[in-house]
């Protein structure tokens, strides 16, 4: 093809309502036949003034709002919010609540990753993966119901602890669910990892070098799949994570090409196993803490003036909340750093040179969640 003429290239607007975009966003791609030469993500369709709305609410009322940042990671988002307020108050969470938070977070991580796996299934055209992954996810949502009475918007963490202690037999139910999951995930892996068609769709596309990852600020499984060995849970531990032993899956550490879509997939699958391990260890540790000990402490209504920052490891990356308090009962400013917002900025780099058919595969590995991206 003659590159002097631009007539053989066309801009295709994929979105805002497009099967590959899980939510409202647009990826404009410039295609030369099937090859993509340029791309441009457009977000903002779901902006609802979340941060501004928080300025008109008391600190306690923001917790259920934080749930709504991402439908499949509600636990971690309300967690990071509680954490930043606790940091502002300079209080320590009771020991029992620390473990309960870890358990809740890891349940959330597993169900979020299963939601992602389901989305990968639809994006690559295999509905069996979609339905099987959602089937497994239901068990973890049931655990959410047992723990907090809600499937998705859990509203479980509180400033200074958690809302309630775990119900009777929760440990038994949780361990049953985890053990079942560790067997059942292999059934799904038979359809994905052991299928050369599936692997062939993911391998060799959407490369990101470790240096670019650092420059863009990409976090989460996308970062660890590209060889950057960093996990907030291990390197800057919060709550009970420092007492747990777990591995952080990192792939392509010495690969100069960086990681492709397949490595991001592998990291997420491995993370689910690690989460199961963490849940198991947390329950073992919980046994040593007396049942009568508190899960929550009383906190003052007003927060002393100052600026504070907290970060935790979200299923999608590193989520940060930045709080400016002015001594009243409402925050002066609450800033959210969403991992997907940052990760999606690299989409242009990732999709350049691949084919149109690769776009869903690459974008599925970002695990888009527009609620937190647009806020």
């Amino acid at each position: 093809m003659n590159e002097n003429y631009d007539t053989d290239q066309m801009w295709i607007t994929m979105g805002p309502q497009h099967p590959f975009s899980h939510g409202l966003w647009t990826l404009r791609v410039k295609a030369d036949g099937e090859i993509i030469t340029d791309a441009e993500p457009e977000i903002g369709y779901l902006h609802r003034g979340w941060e501004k709305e928080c300025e008109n609410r008391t600190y306690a009322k923001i917790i259920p709002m934080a749930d709504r940042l991402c439908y499949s990671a509600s636990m971690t988002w309300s967690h990071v919010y509680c954490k930043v307020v606790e940091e502002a108050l300079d209080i320590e969470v009771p020991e029992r609540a620390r473990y309960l938070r870890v358990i809740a977070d890891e349940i959330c991580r597993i169900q979020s990753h299963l939601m992602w796996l389901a989305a990968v299934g639809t994006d690559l055209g295999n509905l069996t993966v979609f339905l099987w992954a959602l089937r497994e996810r239901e068990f973890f949502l049931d655990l959410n119901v047992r723990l907090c009475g809600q499937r998705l918007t859990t509203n479980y963490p509180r400033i200074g602890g958690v809302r309630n202690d775990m119900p009777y037999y929760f440990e038994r139910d949780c361990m049953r669910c985890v053990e079942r999951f560790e067997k059942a995930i292999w059934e799904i892996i038979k359809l994905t990892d052991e299928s050369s068609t599936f692997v062939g769709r993911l391998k060799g596309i959407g490369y990101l070098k470790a240096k670019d990852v650092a420059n863009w600020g990409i976090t989460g499984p996308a970062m660890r799949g590209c060889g950057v060995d960093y996990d907030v849970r291990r390197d800057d531990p919060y709550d009970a994570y420092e007492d747990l032993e777990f591995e952080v899956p990192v792939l392509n550490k010495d690969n100069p090409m960086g990681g492709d879509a397949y490595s991001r997939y592998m990291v997420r699958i491995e993370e689910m196993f690690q989460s199961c391990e963490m849940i198991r260890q947390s329950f073992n540790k919980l046994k040593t803490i007396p049942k009568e000990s508190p899960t929550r402490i009383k906190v003052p209504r007003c927060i002393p003036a100052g600026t504070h920052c907290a970060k935790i490891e979200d299923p999608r990356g590193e989520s940060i909340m930045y709080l400016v308090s002015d001594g009243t009962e409402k925050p002066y400013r609450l800033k959210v750093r969403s991992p997907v917002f940052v990760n999606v900025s690299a989409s242009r780099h990732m999709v350049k040179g691949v084919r149109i058919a690769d776009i869903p595969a690459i974008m599925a590995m970002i695990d888009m969640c527009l609620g937190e991206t647009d806020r």
Partner: protein
Amino acid sequence: MGYCSILEWIFFRPWDSIKESGYCPYSDYNLPYMIGLRLSEIILGFIGWLINIFVPSWSPENSFLLSPALLNGTAVVLEVVIIFAVGFIINLTMIWEERKILGRTMDRRATMIGPLGYFQCLGDGLKTFCKENIAPRAIDKKVYWWALSLVIGSSVLIACMVPLSDRWYIVNYDAGLMVIFGLFALAPFLILSAGWAQNNKYSLIGGMRAAELMISYEVPMLIMLATTCLMAETYTIGGIVKAQFDTVWYIVPQCLGFFVFLVAAIAESERVPFDLSEAEAELVEGWQTEYAGMKWGLIMLGDYFRGYTACAFIVILYLGGWMLPGLGCTPVPELVFIGKVCLVFAIFAIARGAYPRVRTDQILNIGWKVLMPLALVNLAFVIVLKTVGWF
């Protein structure tokens, strides 16, 4: 003669006497034609009986209404309708079968309307039928409608040309195979035009993909066809089936060919591992994007007709057609054939449940670098078999 009973018009005549009338287009016994003839006798006789009530002086024996020419002409029309209706019912059964298999594969309930969920397709058909007929303003109107009609029409035509047995066919001449595959090969051109006519980038890309996919899988498929014709030493479908009854099913000597033909058939009927021309995730249904409502429903139906044709050809070329080893033609060869087709279609359905969609370049690689050499190896093997004299 006056008044005649309607029952008097329903009578049995042996095939030879039908042939002797000089208007019958078939030389061999043809079941749908016979049914059509009976039905036309009933219908025309009923009309004659009605006329007789009001005009008693009218004599049915001498009128054109009951002449062998008109009876045979009506019989041919009715035969076409019967063959289409049976093909349609087979199609609905296959859709139902696929949905059931997919439902079990995906651990969910499948269709639920009617007995065993069989009427779900009818409900879907009714739904698409009730939709508003929308066409975008900026389309190329002529091509848009003609390409659509021809895609559906050619699919239905080839499906109806597939014989269900040696007594259930619409045409049975020497080049029957060639004609069916010639019509099969029309689709890429029509789909490309349809994709272009919609004035939509997604459908344009979908049309291009369909063309490149179908053309590259046409070649191994035709090589396989030639191989089987070489083995059976005939171009007629009946001859191929009979040759398999005389020796063994061709899946035994040509298991490689069966595999190649199976993959190519899935690709040719644009089903899931190879459905990249209507890839839902990236192309929003590809070349069908702007065909909404009933048009889309008909395209889907046409797709299943193509899938049925592909399955039927696997059965004819490799699985002994309507004959069973040792039994030959059972009393109901049509049902044997349909059963085999449904079994082959189960493979299609399971493949749809198990595999993700393959990428464009990967599909072309599979077509040209894997299936083509395998097809040629199979051809060489068959030539050796023929030379040695085992078949």
